[in-house]
């Protein structure tokens, strides 16, 4: 059944969208990740204009993170103070990101920016995760326990220290603001929540306890992607609510299925599998940039607009 998307102005099979949402939902349920970094490139592949894909994905992430954030708030596994500091950075980052996005869109380079960001970030994260999981598997076979990560000493030297009671840490506000800023920029130009950057950064750079990490990052993601959605909607008119809802319905159902599948697999196997998927997507995007395209011309809205 074809459905005409009012903002993207393309006609797409509704079941394809539900299926895509479901597929990414299963993966995100299995691996406990947001899935924005997979969904946005998949939307490019099926022919949704990149600007619409990025903005709509931000809208979808708000909704898919909302219930998770609520659940964590109820369980009191959110460091609200840290969340607000991260959010402050995130809002500034999102505003900067949308500015950059619009400036590049005007000169026809936004697609390049989005694709390059994906290749760099997915390639790096996927590669690191792959190496890390291989090491972990080897370690568990040889029977040694994993090393504990020590917080970098450099972070302790920075000024403007603040006490975060829920996390039980006393650190400078500069690193969390910087992490939030980076995540905000990524949300605006890549249409991702940024959990895949924020969660490791919170554990390794900020030294936060694992139990509050996921809740706090979800809290930040809901507000930053919400703000990003509004910025894209008011400056670019690229948020397609029909597309978002279709992806979301598939995604929510997929996530429930994925969680059940994930519970049956081992954590290390899961991580290797996820890293391979991430590498495959970044490889496909890299290939598109490297290989001569079959059509080297493309059309954009004219300068008269």
């Amino acid at each position: 059944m074809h459905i005409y998307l009012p903002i993207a102005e393309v006609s797409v099979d509704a079941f394809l969208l539900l299926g895509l949402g479901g597929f990414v939902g299963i993966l995100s349920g299995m691996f406990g990740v947001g899935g924005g970094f997979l969904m946005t490139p998949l939307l490019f592949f099926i022919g949704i204009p990149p600007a619409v894909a990025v903005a709509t994905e931000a809208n979808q992430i708000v909704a898919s993170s909302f219930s998770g954030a609520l659940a964590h708030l109820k369980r009191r596994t959110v460091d609200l103070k840290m969340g607000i500091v991260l959010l402050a950075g995130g809002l500034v980052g999102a505003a900067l990101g949308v500015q950059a996005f619009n400036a590049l869109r005007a000169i026809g380079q936004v697609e390049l920016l989005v694709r390059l960001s994906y290749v760099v970030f997915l390639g790096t994260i996927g590669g690191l995760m792959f190496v890390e999981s291989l090491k972990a598997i080897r370690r568990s076979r040889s029977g040694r326990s994993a090393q504990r990560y020590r917080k970098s000493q450099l972070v302790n030297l920075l000024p403007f220290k603040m006490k975060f009671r829920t996390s039980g840490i006393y650190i400078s506000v500069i690193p969390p603001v910087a992490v939030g800023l980076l995540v905000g920029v990524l949300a605006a130009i890549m249409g991702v929540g940024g959990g895949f950057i924020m969660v490791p950064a919170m554990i390794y750079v900020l030294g936060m306890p694992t139990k509050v990490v996921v809740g706090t990052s979800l809290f930040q993601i809901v507000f930053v992607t919400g703000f990003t959605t509004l910025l894209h909607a008011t400056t670019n008119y690229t948020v397609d609510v029909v597309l978002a809802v279709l992806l979301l319905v598939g995604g929510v159902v997929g996530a429930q299925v994925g969680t059940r599948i994930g519970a049956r697999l081992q954590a290390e196997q899961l991580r290797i599998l996820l890293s391979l998927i991430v590498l495959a997507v970044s490889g496909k995007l890299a290939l598109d940039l490297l290989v001569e395209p079959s059509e080297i011309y493309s059309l954009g809205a004219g300068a008269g607009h």
Partner: protein
Amino acid sequence: MLRLALALCLVAAPLGAETVVADLSQSRISITTDFDGSEILIFGAVRRETPIPADDPLQILITVEGPSEPVTVRRKARRFGIWVNADSVDVDSAPSFYAVATSAPWNEVISDVEDLRHDISTPRAIRSVGATIAGSEDFTEALIRIRTGQDLYQSRIGTIKFEQQTLFSTSVRLPANLHEGDYRARFFLTRKGQVVDMLETAIDVRKVGLERFLFRLSRETPLIYGIMSLAIAIMAGWGASAAFRAFRT
């Protein structure tokens, strides 16, 4: 529509001239949520007071065109090992949809001079003045090639059925990726490549219902649209998970 066209003919036609009378199966296209393209049947007749002249046969040429907008055509080039948009040409005005149908091969239907005068062939319908880059024809050719690939530009040479030099009919398929606007159909009656009569009718292509509501809201009150999108998405996400849980238990 038909009556209006007839009335116009009666007023305008000098005695002995041939005039075209035509109508469309629909003069209003509604883009609904399940819009999957649409087919317009075009039919009409030649009205004349005198017998059919014995010399060269009469031919007919029909265009269906969408609203024109400026377009930027970009060309990729390899820079630092990757393919990026390098050169670009701003086309001042290109129709968002353009279909041209004829009753015979192009050269038999119309002369270049008449084509130039009425902007009939697809390259003529695209206006590009002041393009500074060398080889800007490549860019307009690319524009036509890309839009032809998307079914937005259609060249249907010799597809009009023209019986007894009097009755004609053809059809034009509007694709699913249609943009809204004021479309028009033009009819040209030609003999020996010269236009002997022309007629123009409007086609209204509009988003309707939910499509129209969402599109207008997003352009006119984008902030409200954004907030609404967030609220709808949150509710849909919550609803879907609640429904799934209810279904499982």
